[in-house]
């Protein structure tokens, strides 16, 4: 519910250029699939991992926001032109920053996201060892 609230708020409060952009018809591939099902599947998978920047916590594959439509168009045309999903993601990240990608990469600011699960795994193994192995011989 809150994400759509935010969409509304953002659309209402955004500066003029965006409002002007809103009145344009949506780009052709915003609401239209690629003819090749394989490429379309590739594009759809990618779209599910890209953030709609005008919404709260929605991917561009789940949003009615005009900007999400434009981004879908970009993704589809680029995939159709033969770019790999990784290249398209990089292109969007270059334009909008890491924020646009739901798939965090290991960087100076995100490494804890990847180290922590390993620590949790170790911790889990440690607890299970303490809880289970120690008790192979139950108290008599």
């Amino acid at each position, binding site marked *: *519910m*809150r*994400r*759509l*609230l*935010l969409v*509304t708020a953002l659309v209402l409060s955004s500066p003029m250029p965006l409002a002007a952009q809103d009145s344009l*018809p*949506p780009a052709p591939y915003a*609401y*239209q*699939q690629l003819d090749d099902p394989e490429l379309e599947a590739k594009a*759809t998978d990618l779209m*599910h*991992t890209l*953030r709609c920047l005008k919404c*709260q*916590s*929605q*991917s561009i*594959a*789940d*949003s*009615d926001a005009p900007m999400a439509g434009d981004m879908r168009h970009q993704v589809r045309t680029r995939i159709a032109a033969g770019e790999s999903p990784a290249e398209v993601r990089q292109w969007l990240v270059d334009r909008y*920053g*890491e*924020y*646009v*990608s*739901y*798939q*965090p990469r290991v960087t100076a*600011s*995100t490494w*804890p*996201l990847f180290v*922590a*699960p390993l620590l*949790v*795994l170790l*911790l*889990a193994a440690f*607890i*299970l060892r303490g*809880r*289970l*192995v120690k*008790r*192979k011989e*139950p*108290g008599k």
Partner: protein
Amino acid sequence: MIAELGLVALWLCAALAGLQLVAGIAGLQGSAGLAGLAMLARPAALVQALLCALSFGVLLYLFAVTDLSVNLVAMNSHSDKPMIFKLSGSFGNHEGSMLLWVTVMALAGGLIAALERRLPERTMMATLGAQAFVALGFYAFLLLSSNPFERLSPAPAQGNGLNPLLQDIGLAFHPPTLYFGYVGLSVAFSIVVGALLTRQVTPEFARVMRPWILGAWVLLTIGIVAGSYWAYYELGWGGWWFWDPVENAALMPWLAATALLHSASVLASRDALRAWTVLLGVIAFSMSMLGTFLVRSGILTSVHAFAVDPERGSFILALLTIYIGGALVLFALRAGTVAEGERFTVMSREGALVVNNVALSAILGIVLLGTLYPLLTEAFDVRVSVGPPYFNPVSAIFVLPMLVVLAVGPLLHWRRDSFARIRPMFLALVGLGAVVLLGVWLWSGIAILPLLGITLAAMVAVGSLLPLRGRNLRRMPLAVWGMVIAHFGVAVALFGMAADTAYQQERLVAANVGDIIEVGPWTGTLAGVVPVSGPNWQSIEASLAVSYKGGEPIMTHPQARAFWSPPTETSEVALVTRWNGQLYAALGNQAEDGRWQVRLWWKPFVTWIWYGGLLIALGGAIALMGRLSVDLRRRWAQRKIADRKVDQAERAAG
């Protein structure tokens, strides 16, 4: 005048909570001189429940009559709204929802005070005191920073209305369900604190706590299932889980409650895992409060928005620190004196439940990290997004082994078992898994996670039914039925998730009237598009005739709807439900050339996700009934014994 009555009732509640706290402390001291004061704890809790209910009743009334001189009503309601949404509007906002929270909490407190007789008296007093201490914080929050009865002068001629997305019957009941769940965990928390204070972490304590955990867990399950289905049909794009922080805020208490539920069962049946159960009790309520903080502080919209107006967020954060920090300090102080409890071997029901507990806690840790990490970096002006590509694989590391243990664990005996005994069943399950895995992979070659999901769903489904083998079904306790049904529900939901992820088909087209659209086994014909209007909205409605594999066509009517107060556009999708999935149709805008955007999905077995979720909740409810009926029978037997004693005493005297 009416609004002020509500406010007065609320202040009285706060005062009574203060009294209950003092009385609880007096009762914990247990000295004879304070016995008179301690006696007030139970009545204070009871009267508080009544007054809080009155206060919430007043708010409902104000919304029902649309009293626009009350700020909250003016901000969130509108006289043209249907009555049911006027009422649900009373808790569809910050202040009202917090009032609902404290009301439920007071009712729960009243219920323990009235009914609970099993705990030792000092532990009971400590529990009531802890409950009052927690309640006091929330009363302070409500009265000092979120007064729902604040007046607005002059009263406006009309209200702002409720966000149309919230004008949905499913959503009207979604927040209260979650809140009831959160508050149930607050009761478990109070009982934990009470038991820690008096060092009475016993199986009896776990039995007292268990119905509250079960009830909370059932409601959290229903709340999450309802929220997921709501997002699915209301957002118009067919997604049912987004790893959105708001969803995670509800998922985290659920994960903790699930772990707590299993751990409390071990404690109740076997007197093992004492410290672990206590710790989970604290964590479960922490997650409820954290969820409330995330959703209510505005921090999710933007860390900076939170920093600009931090009053409410800081308040909840302070409460969180006091309660959770306090409980953890208490736990640290007492953990040494809470003996470990009974021992068991790896190959035992307890052993499997420990694995379940550790895995659930690990998943909780991952979700917590993934939810909070972006907020943390945002505070340093680095914006990152953590979404499905992170959560799905990382949580799978723990979910997949947990599901294997879930399939096997219930077959094991308590305390000590041998692998040789369950080997035939174990091998049968592994064989089944291998056959399903290979079969599905050869047949359709889907991605690895859905493939493993379908495999494990089959294993869990069969494994969950195996405990029924060789038992007299008519004499089996309700709690065991509950377990079987809930575990089977996990398999059903898992299958739905995996099947929809792997096999859904999507069709986005711009169509003219008369065009034929195909998606999977369905054929749709756009028969017409007409405008329609409702009490507070106008729509464009399509008539779309769909037929499954060339069968009888069914007419569906997806709408693009525009509400005018406040102005919002929503997508009212059309769903055609079959046993093996759902057709999902949404209508978009009209393009320049006059064609209509139509979006169609064929989502195989998607409904099984929510059926499975409901089965899980049903299992919990049945287990709860089982536990309560055993308790009632025990009480009845005790009363009979007591009566007989009195009889005998009288006869002896006469």
